């Protein structure tokens, strides 16, 4: 195990919970990032404004944290550009095909005790672990 302190992850997780709960309490919506962002890419929808405001909030909230605590954003990872492109394509296609990501299925769906979201979360955790195993232990950590 690496050195870690559970306090910050728990505080951060609680704030994520507050964020998705605010979306439910005020607007009655599931704060699933892939669904909200993906819905924004469909120009036919009339309900684009609230999606844009949520995404804008994500970007602005992130920007504030980049200014206050830049060390929290060590976003570069030991991956080739080709791997980053592949990862992005898989995440985009997969989250839309599977109707959700870590927020919609993992946080909101599990909290609603949705069987679909429990199955989805178990599936992406499993294939994520298999992929990391392949990258780290078969390809030696560099892809």
């Amino acid at each position: 195990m690496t050195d870690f302190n559970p306090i910050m992850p728990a505080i951060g997780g609680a704030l994520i919970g507050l964020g998705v709960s605010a979306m439910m309490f005020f607007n009655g919506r599931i704060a699933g990032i892939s669904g909200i962002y993906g819905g924004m890419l469909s120009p036919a929808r009339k309900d684009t404004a609230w999606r844009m405001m949520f995404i804008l909030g994500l970007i602005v909230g992130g920007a504030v944290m980049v200014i206050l605590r830049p060390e929290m954003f060590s976003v570069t990872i030991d991956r080739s550009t080709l791997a980053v492109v592949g990862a992005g394509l898989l995440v985009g296609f997969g989250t839309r095909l599977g109707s959700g990501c870590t927020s919609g299925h993992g946080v909101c769906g599990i909290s609603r005790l949705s069987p679909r979201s429990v199955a989805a979360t178990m599936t992406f955790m499993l294939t994520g672990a298999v992929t990391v195993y392949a990258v780290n232990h078969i390809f030696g950590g560099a892809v």
Partner: protein
Amino acid sequence: MSRLLASFGAGVLFAVGLAISGMTQPSKVVGFLDFTGEWDPSLVFVMGAAVGVTFILFRLSWRRGAPLFAPKFQLPTRRDIDGRLIAGSALFGAGWGLGGFCPGPVLSSVATGAADIFIFLASMSAGMYGLKLYDRLRRSAASGAKNASSTSVKTQRVGQA
């Protein structure tokens, strides 16, 4: 207006939580998924706290009967576990493990200006468009086949999580 402000505020809270929890560090996500290596349990606490808070606050919200700024709650109603759900989640997990990013942390890291963030975001958007294209092709293939046998065209609705 209040609806839009609430959306914005929810996004800000979410982004601050992602940063504090360490989810804007893909090495921590990959470390969590590396069960046979130097396992980093951070994500257990992130998910645990997020689900704990959400589980309680969702139920308190639903007790009101309706959201504050909207006429009704819009909740997914499907409960069947189908091939699309599992295949999509499996592909998403592979991409998550490969890059260490899921959609939230990528969007909240835009202000870093890092090239990888923009490359990932562009690819992710392309992947989402890719699914729309895939569904359109499948629908037109299905309607072509259905028209040939002169039965009604069945449309497929793609719901959110």
